[in-house]
């Protein structure tokens, strides 16, 4: 591997508390080193902005939901088309890009790691087949446990260790990195077209409540000492008045002591869950109330789920909400329930500034980020492609950094929005340090990927580096927001594992990334109890045999395996 020296970089590396210092970065054998010989290739950053490679902890980039989105939407696949070149395969698609555009698009923006937000265990092989085709970026996935019969049965029998044993087994079966909970219990109720109304509404036929599902999985998560916390999509998403459920949910893990230096729970795309009012007519933002809670509590992190006007393809394991949206908007609707495990739905739609509802949703995402003081607590995401495609991240960054840009955007948004939100009154403008936290550092930290060299530029980190064509010292991001957006959209350089993969926004190399997964162990007696129940379920209820279920090694060519378990 070659050696590389990046000179005169203006570096923002929050994990190492580097805040816009001009420095050189030395790279050797794909890692950041403190110094190298003088034979190395040199990139003169010449005072330009340098970030660690972007990390996206919550995005839908691979698997059965993304692919039914593609199959359903040739109208999307025909957008953003680029013919093949010597280096790149063809690009297709805007909200559901093909696997090549998926990887190239992230790399062009200086991103080098992305985590798939939902893997149904029974369809995990599909997710990994797509991982193996997405070029350049490193990947991992969050495995769904939230309406799983094995989990709910163990909870009903108050057998926490058996819950942990199944989580350990499920993560290995799906080659996943963390525990994903979506509308806990609702997926099972959706099996007969129903839903759970709130945290204490028992799941039909299984007699456990969403609160219990969250609590047991959170405790199991810590017993197993997993690198990431539970990753939770709250009940009642997309319903006016749902913020009360969200606040109740926040409290569930308040007393849980995480085993690692991270949050006890991460709650995702909270924008969709921070709605006041009782119905569409009186819907209003509760972003401020959520932010107040965030400012008073440290056991949790959230991510925005920012809305971007234009086309989107909503996809989530929250089957009921996808059906409700499709019915309301008369949109196309795919539903994909997975036996014994979870629901899922895919609904293409588009967001319009003229709609005050979409205006409120747009505002809430920004309120969460701007009203929560500590930037580490609120990650920037659009829940790609639910709030909007990830290629619009630079637009969201510009909004966070510039009140002027917010005002320009607000001019086109329905007036009622501003009676129901506080966005127009917020002056805060985030700086380059905050943005580095919200687009790399905090993502890596909540995932437990810092020790794997992600999201920072300290010695020993992976040499994943983004150089943007903008000089922080000579650019007023609060005013020149177009320049900010353009610079972040096409990186001057993206370096992945020490190799230059993007130059002036164009792909120059397409190495394959790695897949990170967790191999954790629970006590053997709990494991045996779990396996007995699991074998019974395969015999009686699964439509595939146990021997054909787990993802095999052939599907993870470049694995990085975190080993952990009971202390």
């Amino acid at each position, binding site marked *: 591997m070659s050696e590389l020296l990046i000179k005169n970089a203006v570096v923002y590396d929050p994990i190492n508390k580097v805040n816009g210092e001009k420095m050189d970065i030395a790279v050797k054998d794909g890692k950041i080193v403190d110094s190298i010989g003088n034979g190395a290739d040199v990139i003169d950053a010449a005072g330009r902005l340098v970030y660690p490679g972007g990390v996206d902890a919550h995005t839908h980039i691979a698997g059965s939901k993304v692919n039914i989105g593609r199959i*359903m*939407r*040739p*109208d*999307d696949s*025909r957008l953003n088309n680029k013919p093949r070149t010597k280096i790149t395969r063809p690009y297709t698609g805007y909200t559901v890009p093909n696997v090549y555009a998926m990887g190239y698009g992230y790399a062009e923006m200086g991103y080098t790691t992305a985590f798939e937000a939902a893997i149904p265990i029974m369809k995990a092989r599909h997710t990994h087949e797509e991982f193996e085709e997405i070029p350049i970026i490193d990947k991992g996935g969050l495995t769904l446990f939230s309406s799983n019969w094995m989990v709910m049965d163990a909870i009903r029998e108050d057998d926490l260790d058996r819950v942990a044993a199944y989580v350990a087994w499920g993560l290995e079966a799906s080659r996943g990195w963390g525990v994903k909970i979506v509308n806990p219990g609702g997926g099972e109720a959706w099996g007969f077209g129903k839903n759970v109304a709130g945290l204490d509404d028992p799941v039909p036929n299984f007699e456990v409540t969403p609160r219990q599902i969250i609590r047991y999985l959170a405790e199991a998560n810590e017993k197993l000492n997993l690198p990431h916390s539970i990753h939770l999509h709250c009940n009642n998403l997309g319903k006016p008045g749902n913020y009360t459920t969200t606040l109740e949910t926040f409290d569930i893990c308040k007393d849980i002591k995480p085993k690692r230096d991270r949050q006890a729970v991460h709650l995702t795309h909270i924008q969709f869950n921070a709605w006041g009012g009782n119905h569409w007519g009186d819907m209003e933002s509760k972003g401020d109330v959520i932010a107040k809670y965030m400012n008073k509590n440290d056991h949790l992190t959230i991510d925005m789920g920012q809305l971007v006007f234009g086309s989107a393809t909503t996809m989530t394991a929250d089957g009921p909400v996808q059906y409700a949206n499709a019915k309301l908007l008369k949109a*196309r609707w795919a539903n994909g329930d997975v036996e014994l495990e979870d629901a899922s739905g895919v609904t293409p739609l588009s967001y319009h500034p003229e709609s005050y509802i979409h205006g409120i949703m747009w505002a809430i995402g920004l309120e969460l980020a701007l009203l929560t003081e500590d930037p580490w607590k609120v990650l920037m995401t659009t829940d790609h492609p639910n709030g909007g495609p990830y290629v619009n991240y630079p637009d969201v960054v510009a909004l966070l950094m510039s009140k002027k840009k917010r005002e320009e955007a607000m001019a086109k948004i329905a007036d009622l929005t501003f009676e129901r939100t506080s966005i127009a009154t917020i002056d805060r403008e985030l700086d380059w340090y905050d943005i580095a936290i919200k687009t790399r550092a905090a993502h890596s930290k909540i995932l437990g990927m810092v020790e794997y060299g992600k999201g920072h530029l300290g010695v020993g980190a992976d040499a994943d580096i983004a150089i943007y064509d903008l000089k922080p010292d000579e650019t007023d991001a609060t005013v020149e927001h177009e320049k900010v957006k353009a610079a972040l959209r096409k990186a001057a350089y993206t370096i992945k594992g020490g190799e230059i993969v993007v130059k002036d926004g164009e792909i120059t190399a397409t190495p394959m990334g790695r897949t990170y997964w967790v191999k954790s162990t629970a006590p053997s007696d709990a494991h045996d109890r779990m396996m007995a129940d699991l074998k019974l379920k395969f015999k009686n209820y699964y439509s595939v045999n146990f021997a054909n279920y787990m993802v095999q090694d052939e599907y993870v060519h470049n694995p990085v395996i975190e080993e952990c378990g009971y202390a």
Partner: protein
Amino acid sequence: MQTVTLVPKEQFKISIEAETITPDNFAGKSAQDIGAMIAYEGNTPRPLSELFDITVDGSADAADVKIEINGNVARVKRIGEAMSAGEIVINGDVDMRCGALMRGGSITITGYADSWVGREMRGGEITVKGNAGFYVGAGYRGEPCGMTGGKITVFGNVLDYVGEHLCGGEIIIKGNAGILPGISNKGGTIIIEGDTAMPGSEMTKGTIIVKGTVTEMMPVYQNEGTETVDGVEYTKYVGDVTVDGAGELFVK
């Protein structure tokens, strides 16, 4: 005024994609410039000069450009794609997607127009003197809207799905139409002077008038009695009730 005349040099067998042939692209260009433009014969790029004898008379803006194609272009696709102004006259048959995404100007086809003529049309006018294929004035796969404006007139017959996902504009078929004309019509007008079958399925808005015979009716329309349109009495149906449709279907 600028007139561009194209005469195909050979009988093309493999379809040629020639989306460059529009008044917008030819405006103010010389025969040499036009000849250098690339069309694709299957996977092979070929300059227009290899495919057509090109003569240019005068120079003008798109609105005053007239392109005349004399000869068989039954295997030349996408002529007039996304044109905004000017005129194209095709003396003969033309292949698929003629006038797709058209915004303005006019296209006249004296012979047969293959499928997807006027696909996703926004404005302007297309006249087909002969017959036309499937999906006249329809949309692309998965798009909620096909034609949103402009006018298509076909003197002969058309095949199935004419005006599918029509969101606006007007389609007049003087001959017969195949099955399911005006399916998912959201607000356009279709007049079929000949016969057709199963008109207006999933229509939510807009108008379909069938002056000939409807050989098969969809079982989803409310009979509202008779009504006279332009002096002719029809039975008026409103539907499609399964989509709470307020479309109006006039049947003899």
